[in-house]
C-alpha cells in the first residue's frame, strides 16, 4: 500500500510531516506559557517523536527480501542523502561532538574534517561500484568478489566487531537522553531506548529504517540549528552565526588570556564527579601537532569508507549514477550540522565565560552560581559541577566542570531559552542516536542472517524463514548491545572513534583493492582482513594497558597500525598465491562500468 504511490509523493509526505512537527513545537511553546511543567514537555517531545518513528516502521513492514535488505532499491537521491545523514550522525555527532570541540578545541576539530572528508573516498572509490555489484551486504561483496566462505566470514567478523562497538555507544546515548527526558533510571532507560530502536527496524528492515531515518534527519537538523540561530540572535552575536561569530571567537581568546589556564591539583580533581571536565585548552588556536591532527583525521576518513552501515545505504538507490550523486547529498546534509557544531561550542563558551553577558558565570560568586536553577538541575543529573578550590568565593575558569554531552543538552537553558527548546534538543539527540543504532543493528543482523545463515549454513532456506531468522537476530543483537551499554565501559565519543579504527583496520583495503586491483585474490583479502583486525586490536590493548605506543599513534588512532598491516599483508599474500581466475577478472571489469546487469541478481 505504501509502495509506488508513496515514492512519487515523498516531497509532499515529508513536507506535511515537517510542517506538522513545527506546529507541534509551537503547541508545546504555548503549553509552556500556559504553565506546563518542564518535565511534561520533555516527555511529550521524546514520546511523540518516537511514536511517529514507530508508526513509520509499522507502515513499512515487508515480507520481501529485496525490500527488507535494500529497500527495494528505489530510494531517490536526495532522500537517500537525508537517510544517510541521519544514519551517519549519531549520538556522538549530535550530543558529544560540540562538547569535544568545546573542551579540546583544534585537536578535536580533526573529527569535523575526518567525518566529512571520508565521503570523498566513499564517492570516488567505493559506493558506485558496490551499487553496480548489486549486493545486499558488505560481506556479500567480499564473499562474491574474492570467492569462498572464509573471505565472507572474515568480513562478517570485522563488520560485527566495528559495528557492535559503535552500537553500544548509540544505545548508551539513547539511554542517557531517555533517562534525562523521561526521568527514569539509566539502567531502565537503556531498554526503553532499545525498544524504540527495534520498533523502527524489525518489521520492515531496510525499508522501514530508510523512511524513519528521513523523518529522524528532519527532527535532528531542526533541533540542532534552531538553538544555534536563536542563541546567536539572543546575545546579539549576529543573525547568521556561521558567518558572524569572528568577534566572539576573538573575544574568547582574549578572555582565555585574561583568566589563564590554571592547572588543578590532583587532590582537587579527585572531588570532581567522574566524566566531567573543565576547559583546559584554548578555543581557536592551533594547539595540536600536525601529526596528532592529521592522524586522527586520516583514521576517521578511512573508517568512514569502511563502515558497513553507511556503505549499505548506497545499495538502496535505483542506479549507479544516483548512488554517486547521493553521496554528495549525504555530505551536504551532514555539512549543515557539522558546520554548526563549532558555532554552538563558541556560543556556549561565550555565554558562560563573558562576564559582560547576563548568562556569564565565570567571575561571579560561587554561591550565586550554585543558586541558579539550571545549575541545580544539571548538577543533580551529574552533568555539571562547580567547586571553590582556591577559597576566594569567586568562580574561576578552572573551577567549572561539565560533561561533554551537557554542552549541547544544557546550552539552550544556560543561554536563557525557553524550556521547549531543551525538549526539542532532547528529541533531536534521541533521533540522532536511534537512527544510527537502527542502521548498525540492521547491518550486523543482515550480515549474520544473509551471509552466515543463508549463504553459508542453509543456502536452501525459504524467503519466509530467512526473514524470520533476520528478525530474531536483530532482537538478540539489540539486547546484547543494550546489556553492554548498561555497563558504560567507554564514553560515547571514545567508543565511536574506536569503531572507525576497527572498521578501517579490517575492511578498508580489502574493499578498495577489490575494485581497484584486479590481482587481489581470496587468500590476500582474508590475510588483509584478519591480520589487520588482529594487529589493530593488539595495538589498542597494548596502549590501553600502559604501553608507550610508537610514532605518536594513540588509542584513538590505532587504525593506522591495523590498516598498514592489512595493506602489506594483502599485497604480499596476493602476489605469492595464484591470480584470480578469468571469471573473477571479468567480474571486476563488469563492476567498473555502470551499464549492464548487476553482478548478483535482483533477488538472491
Amino acid at each position: 500500500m505504501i509502495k509506488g504511490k508513496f515514492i512519487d509523493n515523498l516531497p509532499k509526505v515529508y513536507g506535511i510531516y515537517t510542517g506538522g512537527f513545527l506546529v507541534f513545537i509551537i503547541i508545546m511553546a504555548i503549553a509552556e506559557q500556559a504553565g506546563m511543567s518542564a518535565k511534561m514537555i520533555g516527555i511529550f517531545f521524546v514520546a511523540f517523536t518516537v511514536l511517529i518513528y514507530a508508526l513509520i516502521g509499522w507502515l513499512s513492514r515487508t515480507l520481501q527480501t529485496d525490500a527488507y535488505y535494500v529497500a527495494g532499491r528505489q530510494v531517490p537521491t536526495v532522500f537517500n542523502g537525508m537517510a544517510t545523514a541521519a544514519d551517519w550522525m549519531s549520538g556522538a555527532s549530535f550530543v558529544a561532538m560540540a562538547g569535544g570541540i568545546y573542551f579540546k578545541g583544534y585537536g578535536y576539530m580533526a573529527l569535523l574534517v575526518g567525518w566529512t572528508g571520508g565521503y570523498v573516498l566513499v564517492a570516488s572509490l567505493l559506493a558506485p561500484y558496490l551499487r553496480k555489484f548489486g549486493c545486499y551486504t558488505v560481506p556479500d561483496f567480499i564473499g562474491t568478489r574474492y570467492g569462498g566462505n572464509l573471505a565472507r566470514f572474515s568480513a562478517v567478523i570485522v563488520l560485527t566487531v566495528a559495528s557492535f562497538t559503535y552500537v553500544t555507544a548509540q544505545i548508551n546515548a539513547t539511554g542517557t537522553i531517555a533517562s534525562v527526558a523521561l526521568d527514569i533510571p539509566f539502567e531502565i532507560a537503556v531498554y526503553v531506548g532499545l525498544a524504540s530502536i527495534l520498533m523502527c527496524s524489525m518489521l520492515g528492515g531496510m525499508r522501514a529504517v530508510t523512511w524513519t531515518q528521513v523523518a529522524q534527519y528532519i527532527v535532528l537538523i531542526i533541533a540542532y540549528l534552531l538553538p544555534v540561530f536563536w542563541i546567536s540572535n539572543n546575545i546579539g552575536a549576529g543573525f547568521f552565526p556561521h558567518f558572524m561569530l569572528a568577534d566572539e571567537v576573538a573575544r574568547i581568546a582574549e578572555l582565555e588570556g585574561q583568566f589563564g589556564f590554571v592547572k588543578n591539583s590532583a587532590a582537587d580533581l579527585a572531588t570532581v564527579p567522574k566524566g566531567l571536565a573543565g576547559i583546559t585548552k584554548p578555543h581557536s588556536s592551533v594547539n595540536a601537532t600536525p601529526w596528532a591532527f592529521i592522524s586522527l583525521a586520516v583514521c576517521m576518513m578511512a573508517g568512514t569508507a569502511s563502515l558497513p552501515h553507511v556503505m549499505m545505504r548506497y545499495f538502496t538507490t535505483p542506479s549507479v549514477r544516483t548512488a554517486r550523486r547521493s553521496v554528495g547529498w549525504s555530505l551536504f546534509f551532514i555539512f549543515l550540522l557539522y558546520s554548526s557544531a563549532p558555532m554552538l561550542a563558541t556560543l556556549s563558551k561565550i555565554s558562560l565565560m563573558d562576564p559582560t553577558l547576563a548568562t556569564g558565570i565565570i567571575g561571579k560568586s560561587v554561591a550565586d552560581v550554585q543558586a541558579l536553577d539550571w545549575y541545580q538541575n544539571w548538577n543533580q543529573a551529574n552533568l555539571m559541577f562547580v567547586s571553590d578550590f582556591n577559597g576566594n568565593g569567586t568562580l574561576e575558569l578552572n573551577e567549572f566542570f561539565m560533561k561533554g554531552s551537557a554542552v549541547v543538552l544544557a546550552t539552550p537553558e544556560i543561554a536563557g531559552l525557553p524550556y521547549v527548546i531543551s525538549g526539542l534538543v532532547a528529541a533531536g539527540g534521541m533521533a540522532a542516536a536511534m537512527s544510527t543504532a537502527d542502521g548498525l543493528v540492521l547491518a550486523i543482523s543482515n550480515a549474520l542472517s544473509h551471509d552466515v545463515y543463508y549463504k553459508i549454513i542453509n543456502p536452501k532456506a525459504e524467503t519466509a524463514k530467512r526473514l524470520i531468522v533476520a528478525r530474531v537476530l536483530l532482537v538478540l543483537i539489540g539486547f546484547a548491545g543494550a546489556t553492554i551499554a548498561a555497563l558504560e565501559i567507554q564514553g560515547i565519543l571514545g567508543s565511536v572513534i574506536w569503531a572507525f579504527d576497527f572498521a578501517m583496520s579490517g575492511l578498508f583495503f580489502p574493499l578498495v583493492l577489490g575494485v581497484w586491483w584486479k590481482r587481489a585474490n581470496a587468500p590476500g583479502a582474508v590475510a588483509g582482513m584478519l591480520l589487520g583486525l588482529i594487529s589493530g586490536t593488539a595495538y589498542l590493548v597494548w596502549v590501553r594497558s600502559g604501553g608507550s605506543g610508537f610514532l605518536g599513534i594513540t588509542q584513538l588512532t590505532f587504525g593506522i597500525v591495523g590498516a598498514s598491516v592489512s595493506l602489506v599483508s594483502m599485497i604480499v599474500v596476493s602476489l605469492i598465491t595464484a591470480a584470480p581466475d578469468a571469471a573473477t577478472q571479468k567480474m571486476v571489469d563488469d563492476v567498473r562500468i555502470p551499464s549492464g546487469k548487476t553482478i548478483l541478481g535482483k533477488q538472491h
Partner: protein
Amino acid sequence: MSKQEQHWEKTRNLLFITLAIWFVFSIGIFLFGAEMQESSIRPFGYPLTYWFTCQGSLAIFVILIFWFAGRQEKIDDEFGFTEREGEQ
C-alpha cells in the same frame, strides 16, 4: 585499446585528480596549521586554520563530490556506458 580500457583509464585519471584535491584540503593544509593561523587572510574574520576546520574544507568536499559525479557521468556517456532507465 578497447573501449572499456579507455573508459577505465579516464575514470582512473579522474580519481587521481579527485584524490589530489581531497588530499590538499584534508591533510596537506593541516601540515601548516600553525603558519596558516597567523596569516592575514581571515575569511569572515575567522583565523584561517580555524575557518578551514569548521567550514572551508567541509564545503570544498561537498562541491568536490558533485563535481566528481558530474565528470564521471560525462565519461560514462562518452563511451556509452550509462545505464538505461529501468535497467537493474
